[in-house]
């Protein structure tokens, strides 16, 4: 069996499962946010169940349009808060403590290896980087799981992604690995499937990079992304995850649908052009693309390593006078760490603005919405039509190094151009 199959089997009480099996699995954590939570609560009420199945296994995080962007958003956050209070949920975090859900839960040790996590947010697949099975579902799924502690799942077949080599370009990170993969297989290249990342190249990818990789598995249509636990994972979990580690490895004879190789040694920073994450080019082939806004943050690239890379490039430089640089540390801890390391000083001195943790502009909510005809280079995960604002605006996706360099020049640029 693959790791994914082993975790699923363990959660439905079977010795063995295989791709295509339909199972009813026990969940370890059920997540929702201020957009999907209120819908889940409404559906939960319809079930006529008074209490959630386990108050310690439900997470509700107001992060998308919080701090409240308008009256309607305030209403949605209020519904989340009142439900969390009523049910005495362990994992409700108010503005001031909360971060972007997929940055916050791994950082706080709330999710870990061997667990089965579902979330009414498509980027719930992030936690596969810790050796967990985690996947995005809808609000009704969350409502049913909050009542029963179970979810129906079809066991996915698996694509093995073999990561080889060592990066030769100093600015290559997890974002480039996942963008290159999506560029190869397309936005439905892993539809209904699991993406399992293996190979000696993994040792060159930090935990923050791995979280970025698994975060965007959904952008290839995947059900989950997953990476086996190794020393880098254990080092990350130390001091934050306090449950016993449940570690699975894929068997020698595990069945894979197909195998794809990504060679880090030849990989260049990637830029995804509008309007699909699969529309990728090497940074060398981007040409002249003038931009109006740069966003550095999100559940994809809002972690401390992302902030450090951006600061390294922005240090002592000035942002283009007609460009807005918006930096969003993913959690309060990342924000504090940025203060301690002088990263916020660097960003502010460069002419950037720093936002509290929120999904905000990634989905065109607030804190950086685009006007008609405007272009943004963003470290987020989607560049669909109208994703960040006006339907006639454009979003280009890249890693934090490209984003920081581009903020300085006002056009999509490589860090070498600003040295």
């Amino acid at each position, binding site marked *: 069996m693959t790791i994914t199959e082993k975790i699923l089997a363990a959660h439905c009480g079977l010795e063995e499962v295989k791709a295509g099996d*339909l199972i009813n699995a026990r969940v370890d954590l059920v997540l929702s946010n201020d*957009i999907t939570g209120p819908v889940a609560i409404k559906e939960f009420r319809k079930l006529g169940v008074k209490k959630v199945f386990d108050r310690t296994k439900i997470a509700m995080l107001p992060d998308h349009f919080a701090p409240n962007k308008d009256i309607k958003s305030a209403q949605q956050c209020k519904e989340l808060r009142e439900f969390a209070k009523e049910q005495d949920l362990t994992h409700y975090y108010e503005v001031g403590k909360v971060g972007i859900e997929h940055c916050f839960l791994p950082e706080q040790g709330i999710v870990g290896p061997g667990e089965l996590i579902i979330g009414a947010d498509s980027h719930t697949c992030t936690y596969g980087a810790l050796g967990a099975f985690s996947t995005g579902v*809808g*609000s009704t799924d969350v409502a049913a799981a909050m*009542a029963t502690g179970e979810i129906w799942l079809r066991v996915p077949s698996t694509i093995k992604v073999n990561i080889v080599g060592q990066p030769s370009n100093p600015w290559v990170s997890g974002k480039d690995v996942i963008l290159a993969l999506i560029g190869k297989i397309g936005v*439905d290249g892993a539809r209904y499937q699991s993406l399992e990342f293996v190979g000696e190249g993994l040792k060159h990818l930090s935990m923050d990079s791995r979280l970025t990789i698994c975060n965007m598995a*959904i952008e290839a249509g995947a059900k989950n992304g997953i990476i086996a636990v190794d020393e880098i994972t254990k080092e990350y979990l130390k001091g934050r995850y306090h449950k016993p580690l449940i570690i699975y490895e894929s068997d020698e004879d595990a069945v894979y649908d197909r195998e794809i190789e990504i060679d880090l040694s030849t990989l260049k920073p990637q830029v995804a052009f509008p309007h699909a994450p699969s529309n990728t080019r090497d940074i060398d082939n981007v040409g002249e693309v003038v931009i109006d806004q740069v966003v550095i943050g999100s559940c994809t690239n809002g972690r401390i390593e992302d902030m450090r890379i951006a600061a390294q490039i922005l240090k002592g430089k000035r942002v283009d006078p007609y460009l807005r640089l918006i930096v969003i540390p993913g959690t309060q801890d990342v924000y504090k760490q940025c203060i301690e390391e002088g990263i916020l000083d660097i960003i502010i001195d460069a002419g950037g603005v720093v936002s509290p943790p929120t999904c905000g502009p990634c989905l065109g909510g607030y804190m950086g919405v685009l006007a008609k005809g405007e272009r943004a280079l963003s470290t987020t995960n989607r560049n*669909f039509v*109208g994703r960040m604002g006006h339907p006639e605006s454009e979003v280009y996706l890249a890693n934090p190094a490209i984003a920081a360099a581009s903020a300085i020049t006002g056009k999509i640029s490589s860090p070498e151009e600003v040295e």
Partner: protein
Amino acid sequence: MAKYVGKVWIVGDDVDTDLIIAARYLNDSSEDFLKEHCLEDVIPDFHNKIAKGDILVAGKNFGCGSSREHAPVAIKATGISCVVAESFARIFYRNAINIGLPIFTAPEAVKAISQGEEIVVDSEEGYVEQVKTGQKYEAEKFPSFIQEIIEAGNLLNYVQRRVQKND
């Protein structure tokens, strides 16, 4: 089990959930509000142009992107009776079944059907038929477990039959 007869509205490949209902409208989950903005960046004023019972026909990977259940809810609220596609993105597929929006995977039918024509979708027999020619195309059958959810109307009805009230 049902038969759907309606006029076809065609959209292309990879129609994502932001196109179905943009995130700027997700501060309100009421059906009346969502339907007004459904697919508005693809077919402006979609909800006013269609007649109740019309059928949405899409290319591959329909509903890719976000997990927002608002997407199938918005489509259902416009009066669209069912969606036929070459393929569906997985979270959308779950959500549609869970909220009771009928969906059918029928790649051959999608290739043949054109905008504005009338089709019949027979969920029991598992086919899509072009009314003008009588040509029939196979629609994929659901696994029996999923068929049970569909027959219950939605996931909640299905779960309700199974949960022990723990109050």
